[in-house]
């Protein structure tokens, strides 16, 4: 089982459990948005789930599936990676909701743009979201910015800060009197029946991953057969927060496939989203 943001713990509670606990007193029913392959995940299976109808769309796919599942309900949509979110902020959102608009959301206290993952989506947003998905426009923030959404100013300006680096995570744990344990679901993979010989691999980290890992290079001994398994290991070890889908892989200074078998002595680099020019 790989570590994910939903499983990060603060004060001994996973973010998912925390989010559900905040929501339940305020809404009629609570669901967890999942990819189809996460339906059986035990952490999520404790709750009612709604699986994406359309795969690989990111957050907007979850919102789309919820609106289609109950098209006459308004939906309060909440990300699980908001450790500073408090009940007062959710109450402010509900009190400030304008049901005549397609959505109600907070303005980011950092850049003034709408925060799409702590927002209420009215039934009328369904047709617009369908149209945007059809046009390949998948950014829910852009949707709220272009839609007729009601925008509220956060009374607690840090309530929606999220966690992008390992350092921020440790910081947040400290502020919230957090658990010693990094993640509820760390490690835990069962080994293959015949374990291959361990490989010695050189890893280099760049940019955001370098900051999250807290180092530029390291030599690791790993049982990983390919880059996908290696990233899973390193992610658990260093609390890396980028999803593999956001990364590319380079082996021995050349772009490589995630499933390319690794050899002893390989140099492996996971490349975060690039931004040259």
């Amino acid at each position: 089982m790989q570590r994910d943001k939903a499983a990060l713990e603060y004060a001994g509670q996973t973010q998912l459990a925390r989010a559900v606990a905040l929501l339940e007193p305020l809404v009629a029913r609570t669901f967890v948005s999942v990819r189809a392959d996460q339906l059986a995940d035990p952490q999520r299976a404790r709750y009612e789930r709604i699986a994406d109808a359309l795969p690989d769309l990111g957050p907007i796919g979850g919102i789309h599936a919820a609106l289609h599942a109950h098209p006459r309900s308004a939906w309060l949509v909440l990300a699980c990676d908001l450790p500073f979110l408090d009940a007062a902020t959710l109450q402010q959102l509900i009190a400030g909701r304008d049901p005549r608009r397609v959505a109600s959301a907070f303005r980011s206290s950092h850049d003034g743009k709408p925060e799409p993952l702590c927002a209420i989506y009215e039934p009328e947003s369904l047709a617009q979201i369908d149209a945007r998905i059809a046009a390949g426009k998948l950014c829910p923030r852009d949707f709220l910015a272009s839609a007729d959404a009601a925008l509220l100013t956060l009374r607690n300006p840090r309530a929606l800060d999220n966690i992008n680096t390992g350092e921020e995570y440790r910081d947040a744990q400290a502020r919230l009197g957090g658990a010693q344990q990094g993640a509820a679901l760390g490690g835990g993979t069962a080994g293959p029946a015949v374990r291959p010989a361990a490989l010695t691999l050189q890893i280099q980290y760049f940019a955001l991953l370098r900051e999250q890992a807290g180092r530029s290079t390291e030599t690791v001994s790993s049982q990983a057969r390919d880059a996908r398994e290696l990233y899973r290991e390193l992610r658990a070890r260093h609390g890396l927060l980028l999803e593999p889908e956001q990364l590319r892989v380079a082996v021995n200074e050349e772009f490589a496939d995630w499933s390319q078998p690794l050899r002893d002595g390989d140099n492996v680099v996971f490349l975060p989203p690039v931004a040259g020019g």
Partner: protein
Amino acid sequence: MSAFRLSAGPFDTAALRAALANPGSGGFASFEGWVRDHNEGQRVTRLEYEAFAPLALREGERIIAEARERFGLSGALCVHRIGALELGEIAVWVGAAAAHRDEAFRGCRYIIDEVKHRLPIWKKEHYENGHSGWVNCERCATAPAHAGHDHAVASKA
């Protein structure tokens, strides 16, 4: 002389242009990317570029070879800065020479567009408010099948 280079400091654009001069070329187009004082509504005070150099150099050469082949360029060069940059500095320079202007313009455009998307180079912006961020690494700029939504809780209000 390699056609794609990384530079840790300012470089001489006149020398780059002169290196592309060629009696068979009737057109030359260049592009300079400058460090701008704002991005996405935030005031930017300075930038840092970080590169995985061996792969960036290799991929940069491939991009220029593609442009020469595709647009029949007589020559093309590109230099990308790494390290700390101040406002107004040249972050990237592209020059393309060809027999006619259309090929030169299109070749130059191809190179800068591919450089932005393919090279393992990362840009960190420092903002006036003291924050900083890696460009394209925020939630919305990520690849489709990813973070955020699969962990989101949706609930009827």
